[in-house]
């Protein structure tokens, strides 16, 4: 019996050592795999055309390459189509990606579907536009309130702290639009001689913005300043101001950097433009997604700076790249 016990002991020792080696080699193998593992990130945005979204995509792709991420860039056909976006979210949840990056078309409507991701332990990063969900790990995007304030600050300088101002906003109730407007109005409120005479919402439609601006200019012919709070509003308003011969007479601050607006900037129809950094939004969103997938603790908000571009600084090398992200 004792002999048998001894054999057993030797055998167990052998097994023990073997299992240690096997475990060691397994764990080392899995380490290597961990390095080579590709994270799958679904990036669901508002639309997949236009310089703005393409620049986000470019930034996201640069980060995807850097962090070994498989990026799925998905968007509904229409920027307003939040139902389509909800459907995309549901499809994405079915696929169980490692992380979802969402740029919500509608702050409230996307909230519920975003909450559902937590059932499946899929972290969600909100990018560019926030969403009404507490499950979101972080928000990567423009500090819209500050952007509004920047626009106001410059307009106040240009109008010498007095005059009537019109605002062409895009969607009433859209969170980014509201925040920009709020930032703008909060800053303006410090100057009693500046008055906001009209606020219009063009619904992100150039044509509507154009007609609204024309209407505003005919209603208030002595308008001193106009601010347009997104790309479409800016294009419509810019065209209207130029056509009606108000170029240079009315101080104009616009948002974003469509090429036609840069022409207007060089011609001095537009005095300054607030430019977001969509490349950084896309890049930082993917980076945050990688960090979230690795279980790192993220800041509540990762703001990206806006820049106020005017004739003086538009050709600075760093601004050139911001204004013209694509080599065509």
């Amino acid at each position: 019996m004792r002999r048998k016990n001894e054999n057993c002991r030797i055998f167990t020792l052998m097994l023990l050592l073997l299992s240690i080696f096997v475990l060691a080699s397994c764990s080392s193998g899995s380490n290597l795999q961990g390095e080579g593992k590709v994270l799958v990130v679904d990036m669901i945005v508002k639309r997949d055309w236009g310089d703005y979204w393409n620049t986000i995509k470019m930034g996201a792709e640069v980060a995807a390459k850097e962090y070994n991420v498989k990026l799925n860039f998905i968007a509904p056909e229409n920027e307003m189509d939040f139902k389509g976006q909800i459907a995309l979210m549901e499809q994405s949840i079915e696929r169980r990606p490692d992380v979802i990056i969402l740029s919500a078309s509608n702050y409230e409507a996307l909230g519920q579907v975003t909450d559902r991701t937590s059932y499946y332990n899929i972290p969600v990063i909100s990018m560019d536009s926030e969403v009404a969900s507490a499950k979101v790990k972080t928000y990567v995007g423009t500090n819209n309130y500050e952007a509004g304030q920047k626009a106001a600050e410059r307009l106040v300088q240009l109008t010498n702290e007095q005059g009537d101002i019109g605002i062409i906003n895009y969607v009433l109730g859209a969170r980014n639009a509201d925040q920009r407007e709020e930032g703008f109005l909060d800053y303006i409120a410090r100057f009693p001689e500046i008055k906001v005479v009209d606020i219009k919402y063009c619904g992100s439609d150039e044509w509507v913005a154009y007609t609204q601006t024309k209407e505003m200019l005919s209603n208030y012919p002595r308008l001193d300043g106009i601010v347009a709070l997104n790309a479409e509003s800016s294009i419509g308003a810019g065209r209207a101001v130029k056509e009606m011969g108000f170029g240079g007479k009315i101080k104009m601050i616009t948002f974003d950097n469509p090429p036609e607006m840069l022409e207007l900037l060089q011609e001095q129809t537009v005095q300054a433009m607030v430019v977001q950094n969509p490349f950084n939004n896309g890049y930082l969103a993917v980076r945050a997604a990688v960090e979230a997938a690795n279980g790192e603790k993220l800041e509540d908000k990762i703001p990206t700076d806006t820049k106020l571009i005017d004739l003086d600084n538009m050709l600075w090398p760093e601004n050139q790249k911001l204004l013209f992200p694509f080599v065509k």
Partner: protein
Amino acid sequence: MKWWRAISGFIKRFHVRKIQVLISVSSITITLLVVILVSALLFDRFSKAAEENTYLTISQIIQQVTSNLELYVTGMEDIFEVVEAKVSQVSDIRNDQELGDQLETILNTRADLVSIALFTKDGKLVNNTPSLPMRKNTKLTEQVWFESAEQNPGALQFTPPHIQNLFKSDYRWVVSMSKTITYRDNSLIKQGVLVIDINFRTIDEFSQRVSLGKKGYVYIIDAVGNIVYHPQQQLIYAGLKYENLEPVLNYTYGSYQDDMDGEQRIITIQQVKPAGWKIVGVAYADEFLTTKQELGDFLYRFLLVALAIILIINLYISAKISQPIARLEKSVKMVEKGDFGTNVYVKGAYEVEQLSKRFNLMLRRIRELMDQIIQEQEAKRKSELNVLQSQINPHFLYNTLNSVTRMAEMGRNEEVVTTITSLSRFFRISLSKGNNIISIGDELEHIRHYLIIQTIRFKNKFRYEIKADEEVLQHLTLKLILQPLVENAIHHGIEKSAEPGYIEISASIVDDHVEFQISDNGIGMNEKTLKGLLSGDTRSERGSGVGISNVQERISLYYGPSYGLHYESEPEEGTIVTIVIPIERAEQSGEAE
């Protein structure tokens, strides 16, 4: 700490000096050392080769890009020269339709030429192809191409890519080639700046296409460190990325490794000569030096597998060697405990088998000896019992007392006294305080009293004589060895004989032995009876039952089988019994009273 105690207990129980452990530990250590040494050498050798190979590959890739770009830039330089020659030749630059057509043709030959333009020294447009209207607020005299052309007259300048904002067309990323040249405006020789804008897309695509692993990339900087191309340009401007340009500017050619955010990167630099640009390849070491890692990984696994195999083989072999020994040890232990019945048969190594065989032989011998001892002990006990019985032989006592009674009746008082005295002496010596060993003197005394009694009983039918050397008397002997023989001589020899009997008993030292001799002149024995005697088959009906076989047995038990009785007999002649015992001196004189 509970588990620690368990482990240390385990180790303690695992005897270090066991053969199995010794073999295992030593051979595993040696093999392990060898394997590790070989692995380390291999790893070193292979990884060095792999590293050199990697550097070579990367520098070849960069070389390819560089020569492509050089070719491209040289082509553009040639175009610039052609354009410059044409512009210089024309006598009136503002009104030359032919020049316009020629420049248009040149522009159309290369899709990536954006515009050709000539400006005066103060930044006024002289001529441009295609002839598009100028934009407002171009600030062209402040732009790099204008300034550097002015600062380096006569030398062709390349700018980093920038947005062309001069003419009313799309905003394009261009690289400008510029040079201060002389031209004739209305036959006046003037100086101006000629600028040709090249669409940056071609260079951008070149650079993007370069693949240096998954994460690696190529960037281009100009001579002073401005970024010409960088895939992460926006990140650098936003301060999210940082490219350490200092060493890059110091090198014009070569490779080095740097450490960026804890990641090893291989930086390879080459120069595009015409433009003065540097092409910098950034490869990530963990991607390119995978061979090293793979090799390391492979060797690591190999080491583990080898170790496992060595361990198993080792344990097997050492068990094979040590287990038979352990089994042998176990058998010996059982023998040690007193179980002589175990039979050891251990298969295994030759030495162990031999050992077990010898051990078995030894065991068998021990068993035999043990059996022998047991038998001897039993025989001794039996014969002693017999002797005890003979000491109080009632038959002899009855006969003697009977004779004494008759003698008393007949008034032979003297004989009565002699007989009783002898009887008492006889018994006293017989008992002799229970000692087995008595002096030869006593033994002879004993037999003398016996003979006295017997001669009186048998009415002097025989005579006797006891002879002994003086020195022999003090030696020791087993007691009562003579009496049964004398009894035999009387009963079987003399009593049956018609002639007057004679018994002679002698004790002497012969050849280092004590030799007793009892000779009678009785009827003697034939050979058959003689043989039967010693084996104890022949028994007398009237004797004490303590026959000569008892005497023989006792002698050989006490003194060994070489001692004992010897008979010589001839029918009708008599019998001579010789007893040979070793000399045994009394330790104390006067022991025999």
